[in-house]
């Protein structure tokens, strides 16, 4: 079952690779490789920023991590505009830091992904052994051995995944006048109308992604035990850093939204104008999120189990779909539509839902795997003690994993609402999503109308995500 799910996720990517038919002219020239290195450098620095911020956020309790995910649901153009207002030439901090300078641009892009990095690290909670060690032993350089060295591997994995994700993001970097290899993929796909050529441009990045994933697969067998201090002052410090990061990464774009809001009647009218798309997006998110979590659980379970058994699985390779821009995958699904016999299904929401599930399955599987890979003998013993499957789920699995399940659901929900590239090609006529609506508004409508539409999205997303992330994990099972 899990292998079939992985195959579905990999199907469009495979179609894209097969359609490429070679490296194409671009990669036989030095400029292509120079651009790729520049992309990796930019995404790497941005990924490092995201990782450091995410690490601080993962150590906090309460809503900070979910607040840091808000920039993911805001359109990239809106986030970029907010930063340009603050760090542009006319901005209050523009004289010291210009968002159009490379390192600042990388840091700002990284902050948008801080929540994602934090979620990736969330599964790495302190093991009991590590916590005990911190209390019993006075270890020289304990911070290095238990605090840093033990974290290197999961941090490296999270950094690599976020970096690859950022490298495939064409919109926000270009807002800060940084062009990446994804820009050239868009040129090949959108300007030359050459999907095969765009796939060819993606091949080296897929190869790099493959190498990274080989590392992830190898590390899958290892049990990571690392130490987290339980001291009150350290927790307070971590929370303070998390709050500060949230204020910067989320507060600034949100401030931009609120400052641009027009009079209340206009806000209401703008929100009403967005209602059909909001409904479509919510319908899609409600449909897709549980499927993503359920299938992600299936894949992540198989992934961790196979890693312990040292047998192979397709699961980690599904992450390859994250290193290519969405339109390529959408084209793969369009190809699949041509083979599908039921025209009614083709013209409905079916394909969009399927494509979004396939796109987010690796994300859900990864987040859940990071939790499941911590092989706990106590869990196994508890499972053996309970005979009924339902009772085992209710009394062992859910209490053990409820937090990461809620986080996965929240992340998937946010990403479905924010999803743009697949919706653009696969949404049936008359069923546009709110992300498409926002992107069309940004460059044409007055700022106030855009802000009102963004506020409508926030009002929709925040309560759901807050419920998933705050209330659900605290509920006693």
């Amino acid at each position, binding site marked *: *079952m899990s292998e079939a799910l992985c195959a579905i996720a990999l199907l469009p990517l495979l179609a894209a690779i097969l359609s490429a038919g070679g490296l194409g002219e671009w990669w036989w020239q030095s*400029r292509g490789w*120079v*651009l790729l290195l520049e992309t990796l450098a930019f995404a790497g620095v941005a990924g490092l920023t995201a990782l450091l911020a995410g690490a601080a956020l993962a150590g906090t309790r309460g809503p900070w991590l979910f607040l840091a995910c808000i920039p993911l649901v805001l359109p990239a153009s809106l986030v970029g505009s907010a930063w*340009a207002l603050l760090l542009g*030439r*006319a901005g209050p901090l523009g004289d010291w830091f210009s968002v159009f300078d490379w390192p600042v641009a990388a840091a700002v892009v990284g902050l948008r992904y801080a929540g994602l990095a934090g979620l990736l690290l969330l599964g790495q909670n302190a093991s009991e052994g590590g916590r005990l060690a911190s209390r019993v032993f006075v270890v020289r350089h304990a911070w290095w051995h238990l605090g840093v060295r033990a974290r290197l591997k999961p941090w490296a994995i999270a950094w690599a995944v976020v970096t690859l994700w950022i490298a495939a993001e*064409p*919109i926000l970097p*270009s*807002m800060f*006048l940084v*062009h990446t290899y994804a*820009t*050239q993929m*868009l*040129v090949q*796909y*959108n*300007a*030359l*109308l050459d999907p095969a050529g765009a796939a060819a441009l993606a091949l080296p990045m897929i190869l790099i992604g493959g190498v990274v994933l080989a590392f992830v697969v190898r590390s899958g067998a290892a049990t990571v035990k690392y130490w987290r201090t339980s001291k009150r002052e350290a927790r307070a410090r971590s929370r303070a850093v998390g709050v500060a990061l949230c204020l910067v990464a989320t507060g600034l774009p949100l401030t931009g939204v609120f400052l641009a809001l027009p009079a209340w009647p206009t806000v209401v009218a703008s929100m009403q104008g967005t209602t059909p798309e909001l409904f479509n997006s919510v319908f899609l998110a409600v*449909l897709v999120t549980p*499927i993503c979590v*359920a299938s992600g*659980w*299936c894949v992540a*379970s198989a992934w961790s189990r196979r890693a312990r058994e040292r047998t192979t699985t397709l699961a980690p390779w599904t992450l390859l779909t994250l290193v290519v821009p969405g339109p390529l995958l959408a*084209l793969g699904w*369009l*190809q699949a*539509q*041509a083979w599908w016999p039921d*025209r*009614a*299904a083709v*013209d409905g*929401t*079916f394909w969009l839902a399927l494509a979004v599930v396939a796109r987010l399955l690796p994300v859900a599987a990864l987040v859940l795997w990071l939790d499941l890979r911590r092989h706990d003998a106590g869990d196994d013993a508890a499972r053996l003690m309970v005979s009924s*499957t*339902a009772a085992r789920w209710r009394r062992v699995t859910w209490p053990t994993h409820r937090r990461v399940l809620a986080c996965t659901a929240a992340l998937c929900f946010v990403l479905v609402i924010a999803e*743009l*590239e697949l919706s*653009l*090609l696969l*949404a*049936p*006529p*008359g069923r*546009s999503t709110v992300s*498409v609506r926002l*992107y*069309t*508004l*940004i*460059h*044409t*409508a007055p*700022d106030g*109308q855009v802000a009102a539409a963004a506020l409508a999205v926030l009002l929709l997303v925040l309560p759901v995500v807050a419920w998933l992330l705050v209330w659900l994990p605290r509920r006693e099972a």
Partner: protein
Amino acid sequence: MRRTTELLLCVLTAVSFLGCAEGTGEERPVVVVYTALDRVYAEPILQRFEQETGIEVLPVYDAEAAKTTGLVNRIIARRDNPDCDVLWNNEVVQSQHLADLGLLAPYESPNAARIPAGFRDPQHLWTGFAARARVIIYNTNQLTPDSVPTSLDAFTNEQWRGQTTIALPYFGTTLTHMAVLRQRFGDDRWTAWLQDLLANDTLVAPGNGPVRDLVAAGEAAFGLTDTDDAHGAILDGKPVAVVLPNDGHGPVLIPNAVSLIANAPNADAGKQLIDFLLSAEVERALAASRSAQIPLGTDLADVVTPWDALLQRDTPGFDTEQAAADKEAVIETLRRVGFGR
């Protein structure tokens, strides 16, 4: 537990598929239109068509992220199973490209006669209407109408180093503009201009909207954009104004283009929509909208636009077939020069 999870997954998937599948037995006539014109302008017009004809319009709007070609790619990808009846493009080169691929059907609308021949395809595969012009937008806090340069050579002048901006020229109207400049300047002069442009640290923005925003924020003193982008900023009270670029060959007018898709499932309704879009009523509405589009119909000389002082409406169109044919060469030159890296 695994079995339970898998069972749950199967149930959820089945329910989802049932929820997604839709019947096709609609009684009300429908027309599916792909429109690259910004939604805020297109939506009221499509709603008016619905009210007047009773035909339900199912629109697919383009997004800035995919530029104008997301829809064109979608049409190409679904060439064997089209779901689109009408393409309402906001420029003509990609429509010409679809025509060259045989994906458009000829239709001579009775309302097309009001559009000058230079903005229509001789084979009736597309018809232009309601144009935008390429303009230089400048920051009024930094420049005055007397000091703003109007020559495109100003973009390569050392005096303006790092103070000018253009959109990444691979997409939309900027790509069309580049193709037109190549026709007008000749390949050698145009290539040299591009090289000088980059050497002069011109800011390369991701689109014409960001060009407008960079100028309005004072990041650049002036840049190349479209009249509709500039007009929105002017209405919002931002410190910008426009002048027409003077390259010695007159202004570049880029019309909307409407086409009937080959093997359209609702061709009759599609033709009705095309007739409506080519009517004087629609051009008048687009001229009065925030985008302040320039009517091309010969019967709308009385309609006033903010651009009347800048340009003549009887400006000839450009060689669309040549522009479409040159597209790959233009993009190759842009890449060789180094745009987008």
